[in-house]
């Protein structure tokens, strides 16, 4: 079954455990500045929102890459960057409408979410369930359930 990251900002407290887990998984150090998932703090609204690549089916980054360094991982559906092919031209960072592919100056390559090969570290690290890894065809299941609950005739009625 194809799975996807489900992000629920209303559950996010802004702790950045996901950013640390992501950077540790990919860089071997705790370094939020190198995380492929970012948590945004909308201070005046008192809201936090995690955000990362949603692994578009027809991914702009993949189509834009002139050297075919971005490929589909058949197992996870993630669009993976092949580091030894990437030339660091950054065209993909321009092509992505969501800003989720970014250049890493230390490596000279681009970096993006690769779903950690099917076991995303951010979802494991999230203490509040704001990031989960679920059936890609049913990311709306919980919301459907909530609305379905509203449609049940009330017991007293």
């Amino acid at each position: 079954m194809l799975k996807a990251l489900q992000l629920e900002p209303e559950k996010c407290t802004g702790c950045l455990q996901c950013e640390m887990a992501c950077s540790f998984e990919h860089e071997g150090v705790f370094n939020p500045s190198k995380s492929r998932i970012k948590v945004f703090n909308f201070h005046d609204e008192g809201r936090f929102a995690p955000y990362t690549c949603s692994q578009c089916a027809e991914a702009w980054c993949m189509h834009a890459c002139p050297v075919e360094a971005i490929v589909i991982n058949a197992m996870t559906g993630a669009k993976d960057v092949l580091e030894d092919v990437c030339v660091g031209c950054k065209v993909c960072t321009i092509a992505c409408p969501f800003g989720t592919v970014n250049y890493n100056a230390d490596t000279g390559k681009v970096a993006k979410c690769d779903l950690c090969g099917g076991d995303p570290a951010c979802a494991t690290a999230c203490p509040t369930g704001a990031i989960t890894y679920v059936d890609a065809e049913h990311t709306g299941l919980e919301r459907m359930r909530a609305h379905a609950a509203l449609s049940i005739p009330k017991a007293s009625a």
Partner: protein
Amino acid sequence: MAWQRKLLRVDLTAGTCTPEPLNMEWALKYIGQRGLATKYLCEEIDPMVDALSPGNKLIMATGPLTGTMAATGGRYSVITKSPLTGAIACSNSGGFIGAEMKSAGWDMIIFEGKSPQPVYLWLENERAELLAADGIWGKSVWETDDIIHTTHQDPLLRVACVGRSAEQGCLYAGVVNDKHRAAGRSGVGTVMASKNLKAVAIRGTRGVGGVRDFKAFMKATAVGKKVLKDNAVTGIGLPAMGTQVLMNVINEVGAMPTRNMREVQFEGASKISAEAMHEPRESDGKPNLVTNAACFGCTIACGRISTIDPQHYTINNKPEYMGASGGLEYEAAWALGCDTGVDDLDALTYANFICNEDGFDPISFGSTVAAAMELFDIGAITTKETGGIEMRFGSAEALTRAAELVATGSGFGRDLGLGSKRLTAKYGHPDLSMTVKGQEFPAYDPRGIQGMGLTYATSNRGACHLRSYTVSSEIMGVPVKTDPLTTEGKPELVKAFQDATAAVDSTGLCVFTTFAWTLTDIAPQVDAACEGGWTPETMLEAGERIWNLERQFNLDAGLTAADDTLPKRLLKDAAKTGPAKGQVNRLHEMLPHYYEIRGWTADGRPTADTLKRLDV
């Protein structure tokens, strides 16, 4: 190990920034953060130095776990000599700046001297520069934070700075980071401003590596997170209610200092409690509390994010206060509320915003306002001294006006900025100051919780709950329940809490974890991160070493056993209501035995044997 092994020395007089290796020999004895920075301070300054002179130093220090995945591993501390108490000051803050400093490659920053002009430190990994603070001096914390982000065109910068209160010499100004997290107590911000240092702006992209045993570390921190999640306080109470969960509890046990500690229960407590923060208000149907929020790496998330009622008088035509910002924690709600007799939740939230916006400690501020209200009540001051403000107990208008005046150091705000000890002395009633060593009390009346009397009297930074939170044991039964009204066993309890807390404060972790964790949970995390073979026993010993080092600093600064006392009110005037009715604090039953088990002389000095045993 998880240290960067590097500190930045900033000579503000000369305008230089120089890296130097961290003293790892000291780190193995003092862990980091509070302990290690205290060691540096003791080695580098004369304890008799005027706290606001260039001879004082100000140290920003992280711990070995700061910037790691350990739950709550984002803390940093500001260590200096306090202008409020003349004792050592060590104020701890969360938010994100500590982890950013560590990620930029620095364990510690030592500021020394005084800059000829206002400056701020800009730190981008290895690059450190002192830049002119022309555009930010005279601005609030909130403005400064925004201006620095705009100037550097970097939304990911983290900023710690002082507000206008510090610039104006308010003696309890803090260093505020991330707009509403603060190294709040003892006037550490006042020291920073006295050096003409307005802000520290940091961007770190190096990350924190070098963990001694990554596999063991990830396992130990995961186990620790589960313990926090499964605990009723850290897993449910704090995220849902914040520290404000205590408001009704402490009021019920009759340990709620009220109206400058004249009383021990506040009739308006429920109106300013956590529960009240959840209640939808009439005007817009929204509750005061917008959400809970976490500091860096924190899986508890006790932080409060609040809004003020848009119809409230405090924010008429003031759009800058209509958004969400840092809401009331228990200590702030108590000081601004119970201690002044004000039960207007929105007025308290507004005063709290102002404390954050211009960087001053809401505990000391609220207590000082309470002292001013008592002076006004007995006629020792009148509207002549207050500039027309009717400083009456219970007056929300007096409270919020006072906050505005302290923020900018104007009018009666200058008197209030002195703190309650100097304020009450100035107007001839020093007995009305509810302080120890010149620092105002927090929110637990030691008549109703006996151990807290000893805690306050012996705290190395003046009255403070965070040096040995025996409330945990005496009220909440963590780790074991003790009777709050007896003094028996309290010296041992206080010593154990003091030593353990000193160790926790030196790791980079938050002391709130200790509602669920003991050193048995913490030591494996530190040990996996660092060399040194850390066990609960060696951590506790390091804590005791740190406590004695701080004590030695204070003695060398001229403090004596005579300063280990409480205001007469708490020793002579019995509690009037509640379970502690008829009680005073019986400090005299505890203090001599405390000195004894500390290995100190009868006049409170560590013996040569004690210093030798601890290798201080």
